[in-house]
C-alpha cells in the first residue's frame, strides 16, 4: 500500500474507531513512517539500527544475498510488509527448502495478524500505527512473500485487468523507469531474474505497483499457484482492510473485548459506505486527496502533509534516558517488539529463513543491544500495570 492508505485512510479509520484528531494523527503518522524508517534514516538520528522497518533501493542493491543477508532482509520485510498468513501451511510433494518459502506467503486473517494487534494493546500510539500498517499490508500484499524467492514471487505474462463491467484487458508490463499511466493501462514491473535469491525476486515487484492501487481488479498466475488463476480484487480487499483497521483500533482502545480476524467493522464504516467505496474505486495512482478530504470532514481538523523530518529534532535534543519517551523513541521500541515477535514466530515454526531467535541475556551482547531498550520498556509497563 501507499501513503494514501497508510497515512490518510488510517487517519480516517482511527477517527471512526473513536480516537481524537491528535491521537489519529500520531497513529497515521506512525503507520506511514513504517515505509520511511530505514537504516540510513536511523543512522542519521543515531538510533537503534535494528529498528529499521524498511530498506531503501540503494540499501537493497548493496544487500548481501548470502544466508545471513537473506535472513536480515526477510526479518524486515516479513515483519512489516508481508506478514505471513500461515506459518504452518502444508503443500504436498515439495522439498523442505520450498516449503519454508511457501510458508512465508503473506495473507490476511492469520495468527500473526492477531498477535500483531495484541502486541499493540496497551502500547503507544506509535505501536498502534505500526500494527495498522502491517494489518493493511496483509491485504494489499497477499500472495507474495517478504523473502527473495523466484519460485514464490515470480509471475509470468498471464496478467489481465478485470473492469467493473466484466470485460478484461491483457496487461503488458514495461520494464523502464517511467511512471505508471493508469488511464492508459501502462504499468511497470521488475524484470525477470532467474536467480532464486535475487533481490529482484523480493515482494510484489513482478506485479509492479498493481497491489498498491485500490481501484484495480486483476487475475494472474502466481508462481506457487500450480497454474490456477488467482483473482486479486483490490476494491474488496481495501474495503476489508479499512473495516478491519477500525475493528482493531476499537479493540486497542478497549471499546471491545476481543480482536477477531475474519470480522469487518460494520457500523461506523456503514455510515460512510458509499463515500469510502467511491474513494477506493476511483481510477488513479493515488487516492490521497480524497482520503484527506474525507478525514478532515470527519473531525473538522487539518491533516498536515506527511513530513518525515517532523520528529527528528525532538529525538536528537533528548537526553539518553529521555529518548525512549520521544515520538521516534516509542516508534523504535514498538518496531523492535514487532520484529522480535515475527522473527521468533518464524523461528519457532522451525523455519530458519528469518534467522535465529535468541533469548535476551543480561549484558551487552552485540546485535541484541538494541533490543535492551525494548525489554526495559516492556518491564516498566508490566510493573506499572501490576501497580494499577
Amino acid at each position, binding site marked *: 500500500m501507499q501513503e494514501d492508505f497508510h497515512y490518510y485512510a488510517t487517519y480516517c479509520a482511527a477517527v471512526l474507531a473513536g480516537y481524537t484528531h491528535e491521537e489519529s494523527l500520531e497513529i497515521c503518522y506512525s503507520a506511514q513512517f513504517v515505509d520511511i524508517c530505514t537504516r540510513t534514516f536511523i543512522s542519521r538520528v543515531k538510533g537503534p539500527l535494528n529498528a529499521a522497518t524498511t530498506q531503501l533501493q540503494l540499501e537493497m542493491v548493496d544487500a548481501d544475498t548470502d544466508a545471513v543477508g537473506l535472513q536480515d532482509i526477510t526479518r524486515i520485510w516479513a515483519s512489516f510488509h508481508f506478514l505471513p498468513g500461515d506459518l504452518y501451511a502444508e503443500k504436498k510433494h515439495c*522439498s523442505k527448502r520450498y516449503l519454508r518459502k511457501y510458508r512465508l506467503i503473506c495473507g490476511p486473517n492469520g495468527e500473526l495478524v492477531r498477535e500483531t494487534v495484541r502486541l499493540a494493546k496497551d502500547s503507544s500510539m506509535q505501536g498502534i500505527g505500526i500494527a495498522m500498517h502491517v494489518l493493511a499490508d496483509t491485504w494489499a500484499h497477499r500472495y507474495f512473500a517478504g523473502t527473495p524467492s523466484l519460485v514464490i514471487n515470480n509471475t509470468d505474462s498471464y496478467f489481465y485487468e478485470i473492469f467493473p463491467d466484466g470485460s478484461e484487458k491483457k496487461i503488458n508490463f514495461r*520494464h523502464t523507469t517511467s511512471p505508471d499511466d493508469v488511464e492508459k493501462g501502462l504499468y*511497470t514491473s521488475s524484470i525477470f531474474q532467474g536467480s*532464486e535469491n535475487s533481490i529482484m525476486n523480493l*515482494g*510484489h515487484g513482478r506485479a509492479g505497483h498493481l497491489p498498491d492501487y485500490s481501484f484495480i481488479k486483476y487475475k494472474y498466475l502466481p508462481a506457487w499457484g500450480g497454474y490456477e488463476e488467482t483473482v486479486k480484487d483490490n476494491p474488496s480487499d481495501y474495503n476489508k482492510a479499512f473495516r478491519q483497521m477500525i475493528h482493531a483500533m476499537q479493540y486497542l482502545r478497549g471499546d471491545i473485548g476481543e480482536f477477531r480476524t475474519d470480522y469487518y467493522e460494520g457500523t461506523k464504516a456503514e455510515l460512510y459506505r458509499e463515500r469510502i467505496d467511491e474513494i477506493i474505486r476511483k481510477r488513479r495512482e493515488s487516492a490521497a486527496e480524497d482520503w484527506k478530504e474525507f478525514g478532515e470532514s470527519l473531525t473538522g481538523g487539518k491533516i498536515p502533509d506527511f513530513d518525515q523530518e517532523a520528529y527528528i529534532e525532538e529525538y536528537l535534543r533528548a537526553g539518553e534516558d529521555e529518548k525512549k519517551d520521544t515520538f521516534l523513541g516509542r516508534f523504535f521500541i514498538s518496531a523492535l517488539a514487532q520484529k522480535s515477535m515475527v522473527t521468533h514466530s518464524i523461528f519457532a515454526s522451525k523455519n530458519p529463513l528469518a534467522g535465529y531467535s535468541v533469548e535476551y541475556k543480561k549484558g551487552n551482547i552485540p546485535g541484541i543491544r538494541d533490543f535492551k531498550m525494548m525489554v526495559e520498556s516492556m518491564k516498566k509497563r508490566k510493573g506499572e500495570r501490576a501497580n494499577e
Partner: protein
Amino acid sequence: MSKFARVGNIIVSLLTVLLGVFLFFMPGEGFYIIVLILSIGLFIAGFKEIIYYFTMAINMVGGKRSFYKGIIVLEAALFTLSLYDIPKIFILLYLIGVHVFSGTVEILRAWESKKNGSSFVLKFIQGSLDITMALCCLVFIRNGNTGTYIYAAGLINSAIFRIVSSFRKTAIVYIQ
C-alpha cells in the same frame, strides 16, 4: 552483486588470466586443458540447474524452463568433453564459436540496458571486443600459433572486463 559473488567473479577472472598466460607459453597443449575446464564448469552448472528444478522450480509456474536449461547445459558439457580427442583446429573453432555467442549475448544485454535507461557502454564494448577477437582468430587460424595467441589475448581481455564489472553498481528497476 553480493560480496560472495564479487569475490567469486574475481577468482574466476584471475584463473582465466592464468589460463590465457598458460596458452601463450604452451599453445599446443593449452587448448585441451581449456576444453576440460570448460566442460567441468558446464557439468556443474547443468547439474545445479537440474537439482534446482527438482527441489524448487518443479512447483513453480513456468519452472520447466530451469529443467530445459539444465539439460541444454549438460549436453553442451558432454559435447565440449567430446572435443578432447580431435585436432586442435576444431577445438579452436568451437571456442571461437563460444566467444562469438557470448559476445552477441553481451551486445544484446547492452541493448536491453539501453532500452531500460541503464548504462550500457561497458557491456557493448566487451561484447564487441569478444566478437572482434573471435573473428581475428578465425582469420589467422591456419597461421601457426597466431590464432592461439589472439584467443589467449581475448581470454585475458574478457577476464579484465569481468573484474571491472564486479566493482560496478548498476541501477535497477525495483518496485517497492
